[in-house]
């Protein structure tokens, strides 16, 4: 029942939660959740955030499919990081602005919320699920590492909102 207990601020209808139940009812409930998610994804209102992210990711992937795409010997996009990034994008609450997607020089996918040079927050998604993040908020900065799980880590959500505070 984790999805029903999730806090509103993190609410994302596309987030997939691990089904820890073993009963037939648990399986049936999971099927209904998946069914509902597919319906939500077709919605222009509810699905737009997710589709915009996917669209940006597809574009970034095309631009960086080959190495040296930046002219400074950048590595081509890491396909595993790309899959993890899709998983990460599903965890983003609909209340946060759609991030820009870039590919890092090491081939990892980066999500960036950018208002200006001193109002920026970035999350790089590694193939092993590590999330390296850094933000600059005026004179303050934050950086660290989290891991991809069933929910968006609070520290990431807090820092995304700091960009727009």
């Amino acid at each position, binding site marked *: 029942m984790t999805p029903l207990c999730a806090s509103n601020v993190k609410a994302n209808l596309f987030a997939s939660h691990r089904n820890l139940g073993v009963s037939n009812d648990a399986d049936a409930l999971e099927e209904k959740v998946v069914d509902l998610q597919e319906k939500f994804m077709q919605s222009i209102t509810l699905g737009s955030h997710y589709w915009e992210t996917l669209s940006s990711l597809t574009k970034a992937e095309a631009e960086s499919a080959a190495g*040296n*795409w*930046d*002219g*400074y*010997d*950048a*590595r081509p996009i890491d396909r595993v990081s790309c899959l993890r990034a899709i998983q990460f994008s599903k965890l983003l609450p609909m209340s946060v602005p759609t991030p820009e997607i*870039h590919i*890092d*020089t*090491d081939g990892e996918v*980066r999500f*960036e919320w*950018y*208002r*200006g*040079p*001193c109002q*920026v927050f*970035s999350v*790089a998604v590694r193939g092993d699920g590590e999330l*390296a*993040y*850094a*933000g*600059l908020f005026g004179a303050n*900065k*934050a*950086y*660290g*590492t989290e891991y991809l799980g069933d929910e968006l880590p609070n520290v990431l959500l807090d820092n995304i909102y700091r960009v727009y505070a």
Partner: protein
Amino acid sequence: MPEEFILQLPSAVGPNESLARYLTHSNHYNLQTRSVRPTAFEPPSDLRLSVFRINGLDIEHVWKIGQVNVIGAMSRPRTLYGIGKIKASAVSHVHLDIDPDNVPPRHACLVGWPEQKSRRMSIAQELAASASLILRS
């Protein structure tokens, strides 16, 4: 390399020296805010970020260096969009060092990047925030 580019520079980089990071990708800058984006200062895998020392050069020479030594050295055609210009003091402020290898002339590398990726991202954000964007018209 034209002679004027090989103007003698002190071997050590002074804190007030200007350094140029050539912008070769559209995601290296933001037109709306007229700013350099952190991606422009992300180091490559060898952790040596290429810059050029541009003190004493007029802007046309800055573009020539970029065209000859940066764009010309790339394996496939690229566009030179502009430069992110920073002071050497901004580099020491984020605890990086400058290796003025002078190969090619005026070239230097920002070195001493930490291993932790999140720290490198943070440093790139600080460098970008201290940089001024000069676009090639």
